[in-house]
């Protein structure tokens, strides 16, 4: 169990109230004593050392910090870790297995869906949420589903291609 509240403490010696949270992250239960104001993004990055989740704008605009909460995409910079207590979170680290990339990751690699890579984890998780619901999306549906994620390299064209690539592979895998 990690204690995270010390990291956000100031110099004062004020008594700080903490909560015990347990979040199932990428299939493993992780517990920590946290200050309620600890953001989910920081719980993931600093507490669990899963630094694949990026903090971009830190104001719920850019979507770089997107993770899946019970399968739904959420901006982890705009949610407290305590709100995820008892819930399931998937980060980009949960996409691949030790030996295999997820088709979405393969798609981003094959179709050059990234340049600097900063927005990529959020893009991939938003794409996963879409493909979990709709394995045969149109280009428009992909653009719509990713419209809460910003890419400053302006690489949207290849990101959309990457998701189409992944959808095709996932359909083949599902035998459809």
């Amino acid at each position: 169990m990690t204690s995270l509240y010390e990291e956000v403490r100031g110099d004062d010696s004020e008594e700080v109230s903490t909560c015990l949270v347990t979040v199932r992250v990428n299939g493993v239960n992780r517990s920590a004593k946290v200050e309620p104001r600890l953001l989910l993004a920081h719980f993931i990055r600093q507490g669990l050392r899963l630094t694949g989740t990026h903090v971009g704008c830190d104001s719920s605009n850019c979507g770089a910090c997107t993770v899946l909460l019970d399968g739904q995409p959420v901006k982890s910079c705009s949610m407290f870790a305590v709100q995820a207590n008892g819930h399931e979170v998937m980060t980009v680290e949960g996409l691949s297995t030790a030996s295999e990339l997820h088709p979405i990751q393969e798609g981003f690699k094959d179709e050059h869906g990234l340049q600097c890579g900063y927005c990529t984890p959020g893009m991939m998780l938003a794409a996963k949420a879409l493909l979990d619901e709709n394995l045969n999306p149109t280009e428009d549906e992909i653009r719509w589903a990713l419209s809460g994620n910003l890419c400053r390299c302006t690489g949207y064209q290849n990101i959309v291609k990457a998701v189409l690539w992944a959808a095709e592979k996932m359909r083949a895998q599902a035998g459809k």
Partner: protein
Amino acid sequence: MYPSRFKYESPKTIEEAIALLTKGNGEAKILAGGMSLIPMMKLRFASPETLIDISNIPNLNYHRADADGTFRIGALCTHADLEKSSILAQHQPTLAATAPLVADPIVRTRGTFVGSVCHADPQGDWSSAMIALDGMIVAQGPKGRRTIAVRDFVTGPFQNVLASNEIAIEAIIPTTKGIRFGGYLKLERRIGDFATAGVAVALELSGASVIRAGIGLTGVGSSTVNAIDAAQSLVGSPLTSQAIERAADLAAQAAQPRSDHRGSATYKRQVVRTFVVRILTEVSSNQVKAA
């Protein structure tokens, strides 16, 4: 960015949440989706001493049409729930048109309808739709429940009439005597940006004749604009092109936009006018098809 320290509470019942609000004595805030509150706390525009997270209170995530046609939306119903809802499309055309335009798809999975109306942002899409529909908010406090019309509920930018120990538990759209038509259009620089301007129109028609009309304007005033004169001008007659043009002119006059980086006041008025024409023209052609 970290918010100021706060105490976190996670009540299991509405009564417990109200008791915590009462104990908070004006320094406690309700947390539902948090899509406006948490960014504001991070910027320290808001520093509540206590956050009361209502997400673990059961039976607040619903939206339904009662047998008499009254439409109800519970405090934990998210924008995404409404966007994906078939009953919303069936019963509430104005709300169905608004849902996919609120914020961005990821924010919509957390943010709530009722929370958005309570937040009373002049840029809030739902407030315009609720003004157009004569919608109401049900507030529950220690002394019981009261129902407040949204036009009286919002008193200014980010201000509503909730007492410090009241929770907005439900939104209501009253039943209709005619057939509902309506729409919502918004101009934004990119998805997720604040509206340059938005227009919500809600009509009830009996035959070809308009028997009730409401028009709410987003982002063109210090709070949501209720374009009463524009709406009233439509009542009692069919949607002729003259009636549509007149209502659009009156709505543009009702707007009180400010020139800023999203556009000049003149431009925003023109956007309002154009959107009113577009929505009413579409309603007019749908109504002909339906008849």
